[in-house]
């Protein structure tokens, strides 16, 4: 009779390991991993995209330039700020939405689809609309029209370096919360119904059930969501690209936007690659830090 202990020590046969993991691993290493190695390699070159054959080795020159580049630090700060605020704003929002639609009530499918629609609405349309919402002119901008009605001064939103990033984050939360909502929803569905019944029997009300069943039950999924949100928030590119082109005064220029700008617009592939390397190191470090924090 096999006991649990024996099971966890038993090594799975190699043929199964191979079958299950090799397709993914082969593809990852040939494409993503190779591309990454190449990119890292490019970071050591002075590389004009249009003259690839003329690229030459410059050692750590790109990194030296990077460390004295004020745009890099600005981009770094912007990305970190964006990530931080998104985590404390978008995740609770997504969780709230997930809670709203977890029960299989009639019509819940419609609500779920509704929260999902921003994700499928083209980002260009979204940006047109939000530019309108944020229009500095109170007769044309929805938010400013309301603000002025309350007697306050209209805001420049996307045109003011102090508020532009927040404006993008607000929009981003609305747009992407659906993604986290789905994962959290799946997690909520995985909490066994009997636990709720048991809690009810013990006399817990809705609030008690939430604290004692839902939260613990969702803990692992939540940690996961925080981790992946952190990573994808650090990678954010489309919103600043479409809405503010990194401005005003580079206040919305994220690291990924910086990489794109240097790589594609300015064609300094070497420099863009060095930013990529540093980006990688930074995010992995943050990720590891988060992991160790959570372990405690």
């Amino acid at each position, binding site marked *: 009779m096999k006991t649990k202990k024996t099971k966890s020590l038993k090594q*799975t046969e190699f043929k199964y390991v191979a079958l*299950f993991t090799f397709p993914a691993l082969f593809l990852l290493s040939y494409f993503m991993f190779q*591309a*990454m190695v190449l990119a890292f390699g490019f970071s050591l070159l002075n590389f004009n995209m249009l003259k690839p054959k003329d690229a030459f080795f410059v050692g750590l020159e790109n990194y030296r330039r990077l460390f004295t580049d004020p745009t890099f630090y600005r981009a770094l700060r912007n990305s970190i700020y964006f990530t931080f605020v998104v985590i404390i704003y978008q995740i609770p929002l997504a969780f709230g939405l997930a809670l709203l639609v977890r029960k299989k009530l009639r019509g819940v499918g419609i609500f779920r689809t509704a929260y999902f629609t921003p994700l499928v609405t083209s980002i260009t349309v979204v940006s047109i*609309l939000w530019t309108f919402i944020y229009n500095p002119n109170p007769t044309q901008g929805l938010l400013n029209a309301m603000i002025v009605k309350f007697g306050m001064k209209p805001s420049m939103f996307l045109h003011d370096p102090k508020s532009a990033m927040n404006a993008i984050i607000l929009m981003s939360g609305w747009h992407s919360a659906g993604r986290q909502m789905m994962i959290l929803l*799946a997690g909520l569905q995985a909490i*066994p*119904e009997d636990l709720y019944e048991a809690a009810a029997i013990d006399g817990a009300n809705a609030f008690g059930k939430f604290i004692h069943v839902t939260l613990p039950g969702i803990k692992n999924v939540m940690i996961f969501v925080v981790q992946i949100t952190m990573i994808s928030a650090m990678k954010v590119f489309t919103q600043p690209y479409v809405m503010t082109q990194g401005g005003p005064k580079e206040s919305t220029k994220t690291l990924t936007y910086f990489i794109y700008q240097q790589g594609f617009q300015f064609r300094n592939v070497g420099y863009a690659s060095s930013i990529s390397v540093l980006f990688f190191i930074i995010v992995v470090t943050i990720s590891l830090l988060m992991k160790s924090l959570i372990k405690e």
Partner: protein
Amino acid sequence: MRQRKRALILIYAVNIVVSLLYISPLLWMISSSFKPESRIFSDMTKGLIAFIPTDFTLDNYKEVFLRSNLLLYTKNSLFYVSVLVALSLLVNSMCGYALAKFNFRGKNLIFNVVIALLVLPLESIILSLYWVVIRLGWNDTFTALIVPFVAKCFNIYLFRQFFLDIPDDLIEAASIDGAGTVYIFFKLVVPISGPVFCTVLILDYIGYWSDFMWPLLVTLSENKRSIQLGLQAFFTDPPIYYGPIMAALVLSVVPMMILFFVFQKYYVQGIAVTGIKG
């Protein structure tokens, strides 16, 4: 009982309000697609009229069908994204399962590599990836759109996390009954993992459906053109006609909405493992 009813009403009310906030841009887009060009932006600040197609017209849709190959592009996108997502579900779930339930040397190393690769934004590697793909001779092919992205770190990670939560007893019980590893995975684990498979399917689908940069780089000809590339034609140089843009966007959104609506109902209490009590 009354408390239950009140709670229900509250839930419905909040849902309705929030939903309206969420779908209003889409509603605006839809109603604009039925308006004549001159009304689209002028109505925007006039309140509710922005959402109601007065002066209803089908001109914009006619324009889209006459002047562009949107149907072909939709077909192309449907084709390659479906193949990609299907392969992705297979390959990544298997890998995630192995990382969650198997024991082997190097398991942790591989998992850490997966997490590390997850960090990389596409913008960092897109140029070198493009170079790799061209070198393979896959310029202007569906292969180039599909193969490099079948294995996806995010999906592997997601699958792993969910498979971790499947009780080992369940698997052990089946294996004692004589089921092989492969059988257990496909006939036991997968059917009870509806939510995670649906999540990956949906997220992957929207992700690739809205992809612009990669298809731009690796495809050229009309019969490989994806829907986003086709849509962009409407946004190019003056004068930009927003009527057809709205119509085209509505048409491009419909498949995704249908997809989501169909699959979201699989978010059922899938883990019927509640049946196993010890």
